[in-house]
């Protein structure tokens, strides 16, 4: 039986973690559509255990939810046996250039360059960078989500940024 309290608790959990979980899934899959599907599946599982999850401390909640998300990514690729999706899927979200202004074309090319550079990062660095940028998560939050020390997160983030700065020829 679904109660109003369950729904309110679930909505609060969804609002709190959706951005970070989505960023994590985007970083792991490099596929926006897959990330949305897996986000929905992750929170469907949260819904089924909402009483249990709501009783956990905030960091434990985050760890629980991200463990579900991580397992779903593993299951998906095990099932599909397709390996890691390419960042080409992201290109679908970039608007057509037909009627673009010069500025828009330049912006589009820059975004494509950033996308390619991020796609070339090792999995862990790409995931951490995506969680920090797209998910706007702190290193402590990322650490709790991924089960690693905050110092390691900061170090990997630093390495990812240095690599991107070199590739994009900008200062970082």
């Amino acid at each position, binding site marked *: 039986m*679904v109660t109003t309290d369950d729904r309110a608790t679930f*909505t609060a959990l969804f609002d709190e973690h959706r951005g970070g979980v989505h960023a994590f899934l985007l970083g792991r899959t490099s596929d926006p559509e897959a990330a949305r599907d897996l986000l*929905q599946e992750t*929170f*469907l599982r949260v819904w089924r255990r909402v009483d249990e999850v709501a009783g956990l401390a905030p960091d434990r909640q985050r760890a629980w939810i991200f463990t579900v998300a991580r397992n779903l990514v593993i299951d998906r690729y095990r099932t599909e046996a397709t390996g890691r999706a390419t960042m080409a899927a992201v290109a679908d*979200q970039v608007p057509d250039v037909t009627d673009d202004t010069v500025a828009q074309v330049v912006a589009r090319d820059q975004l494509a360059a950033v996308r390619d550079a991020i796609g070339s990062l090792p999995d862990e660095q790409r995931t951490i960078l995506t969680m920090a*940028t797209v998910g706007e998560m702190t*290193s402590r939050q990322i650490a709790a989500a991924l089960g690693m020390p905050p110092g390691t997160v900061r170090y990997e983030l630093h390495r990812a940024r240095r690599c991107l700065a070199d590739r994009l020829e900008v*200062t*970082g």
Partner: protein
Amino acid sequence: MTHDPFDPSASDPLDQVLGAWAATQRLDEAESSRILAAIVGQAEAAAAGSRPSVGPLTPTGSLPATWWSDLSLQVASAVVLAARRSGPGIAITTGTRAAA
């Protein structure tokens, strides 16, 4: 990280390009709402599907509240009609038959 490193107003060029990229990747409110509604709808449909049905159901899925009185009335009417059609030879009487 003690500040938002991807603020569009950031002076760091890398932060600026990452901020622009990140903005194209985030879930917008409409998409978030759609996903939330899909989860809640899916969960509630699953919960409704697992409920056991009780008793005979009408096509609309529930038994009318007056089903017992309706049935009793129909049975009583049928008995009265049958008695009227059968004639006096088989009429059920009490007490007077022995006296006759």
